[in-house]
């Protein structure tokens, strides 16, 4: 017969029960403490959003939220603030940079995941990561002194000769402008497309590919008919993620975009971006309405990146779910 609790007098003593009930378990304290630190992160984001929203009230108060977004004049002297030129510059440079970076990034990812031998992949992938590790300000420095003279002397005159009849390549080849900014952005975001896409392409089940090869398909046919459709939403996710990076990128763009708050259809013309106007003018903002307008630009930038990031996470999440 097994020993029951009621058989042992010591275990029935009231002191023991009493002690058991009031004893603060260290494990619960531990869980509470680490849980509080996890909660701090949530508090931080809510605080960030709220703080920016409250500090931008003054700017929204004058023109209204949509009025501020739709306003095309940005004149700190007279106190008229409209954010549209910056939103335009941010969107145009980001989308043009995606146009350049997407084919290169996906092509490289296909090379790394499907074509290259393992040793070559192990050699090249750290180099791609290095490209992502170079600070934005160094890209900007290189952009000012190397890329922009190159654009002004050779690339932009060539584009004008070849496509000068298009509205995108009118104007004077300054080397400083939205095209140069887009090019720098493309170089900076391509590592993000490559690393996520390579990872997603590596999850394509080998039996599917083997099936294609067994049917006599070439490598390209396998990539086109099996790997790409399988990894489609993951790759789109990586592109949207890269878009979010491009939207918020500051230093390199500030240094080569030309910092002129006007909207031009020509990519050769100088423009301005949301992040750049904050970087350039924040320390100069002397009046409270000026400062509030700049915080409002930051708030809109935050909203846009939130939406884009959400879309990216959803796309990537969908691929990993289907796996």
């Amino acid at each position, binding site marked *: 017969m097994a020993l029951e609790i009621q058989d042992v007098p010591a275990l029935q003593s009231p002191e023991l029960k009493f002690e058991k009930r009031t004893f603060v378990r260290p*494990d619960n304290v531990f869980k509470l403490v*680490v849980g509080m630190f996890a909660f701090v992160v949530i508090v931080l984001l809510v605080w*960030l959003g709220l703080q920016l929203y409250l500090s931008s009230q003054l700017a929204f108060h004058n023109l209204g939220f949509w009025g501020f977004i739709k306003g095309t004049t940005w004149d700190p002297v007279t106190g008229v603030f409209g954010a549209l030129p910056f939103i335009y510059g941010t969107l145009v440079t980001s989308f043009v940079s995606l146009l350049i970076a997407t084919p290169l990034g996906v092509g490289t990812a296909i090379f790394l995941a499907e074509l290259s031998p393992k040793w070559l992949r192990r050699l090249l992938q*750290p180099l791609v990561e290095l490209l992502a590790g170079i600070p934005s300000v*160094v890209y900007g420095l290189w952009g000012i002194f190397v890329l922009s003279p190159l654009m002004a002397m050779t690339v932009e005159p060539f584009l004008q000769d070849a496509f000068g009849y298009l509205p995108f390549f009118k104007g004077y080849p300054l080397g400083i402008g939205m095209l140069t900014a887009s090019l720098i952005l493309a170089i900076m975001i391509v590592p993000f497309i490559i690393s996520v896409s390579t990872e997603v392409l590596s999850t394509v089940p080998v039996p599917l590919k083997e099936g294609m090869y067994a049917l006599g398909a070439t490598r390209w046919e396998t990539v086109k008919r099996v790997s790409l459709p399988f990894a489609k939403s993951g790759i789109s996710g990586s592109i949207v993620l890269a878009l979010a990076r491009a*939207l918020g990128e500051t230093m390199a763009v500030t240094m080569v975009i030309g910092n002129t708050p006007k909207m031009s259809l020509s990519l050769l013309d100088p423009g301005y971006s949301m992040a750049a106007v904050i970087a350039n003018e924040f320390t100069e903002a002397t009046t409270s309405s000026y400062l509030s307008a700049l915080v409002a630009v930051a708030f809109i930038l935050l909203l846009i990146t939130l939406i884009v990031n959400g879309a990216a*996470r959803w796309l990537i999440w969908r691929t990993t779910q289907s796996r």
Partner: protein
Amino acid sequence: MANHTEQVRRTVLSGSGFVYWRRKISNTLFTVLFSSSILIVLLPLLLIVGYLFYKGASSVNLNFFIHRPAPVGEIGGGMGNAIIGSLYVVGLASAMGIPIGLLGGIYLGEFPHSKLSTVTRFVADVLNGTPSIVTGVFAYTVVVLPMKSFSAIAGGFALGVMMIPTIIRTTDEMLQTVPTSIREASLALGVPYWRTVLSVVLRSAKSGIVTGILLAVARVLGETAPLLFTSFNNAFYSYSLSEPISTLPVQIFNYAISPYRDWHRQAWAGALVLVMAILIVNMGVRAFSKQKYEHTL
């Protein structure tokens, strides 16, 4: 029907015929395209690193590391104060980011399916995607405005906020890869749960967590945008928490957009030093993860 299949098989395998050549050519074409895209991607890397050495290497000397910036027109001077300032601000950021990230990450990794974990994980990802300049504006409104002065602590706060998501997510992932059997072995020996987590689970996930921390440091070391209007700039050596302080990235930016040749030269030198520092931290990461790899083997 059978005859038809046979015919197709022959056409494909015989190495002649239009279909065969079209498929072969498109295959070669795309192989060449994909292979050349990696070359195009790596070309800027080669150009940037090449120019950094070409324009910067000759200016990196002892003076560069110990002197503070010379006034306009005077040749010479260095970025000593900016290098120390960068280390100072990143140190402040680590003092804020590492404890929050590490302890929060322990919660996520140890209670991965709780509601708080799910929400925090999502929030950390959102915070990670927030542009650094927006974080800078946040730091400005909550630290610089109340203190009425640009300060080292404001810069540290901005970078600290940026470090948290990276550290919390790597700690989370690393703790989840620790096998349950290790926890059970420790618990079976009578070790309380909190002690198990701190001395056994954390220790077996150590190299992964250190990797995450180093990655976060490497990321904020090169950040410029949030520092422009938080820690601002300072022409002198400064060790005060409440005063503006010079940092290497901000100094590079100011010199790069200046009209002086000598300052451009120094900007290149600063950029070279910065990239090398980040490279060294990244190599440290590699050494750590390699160590872990060999350990498990």
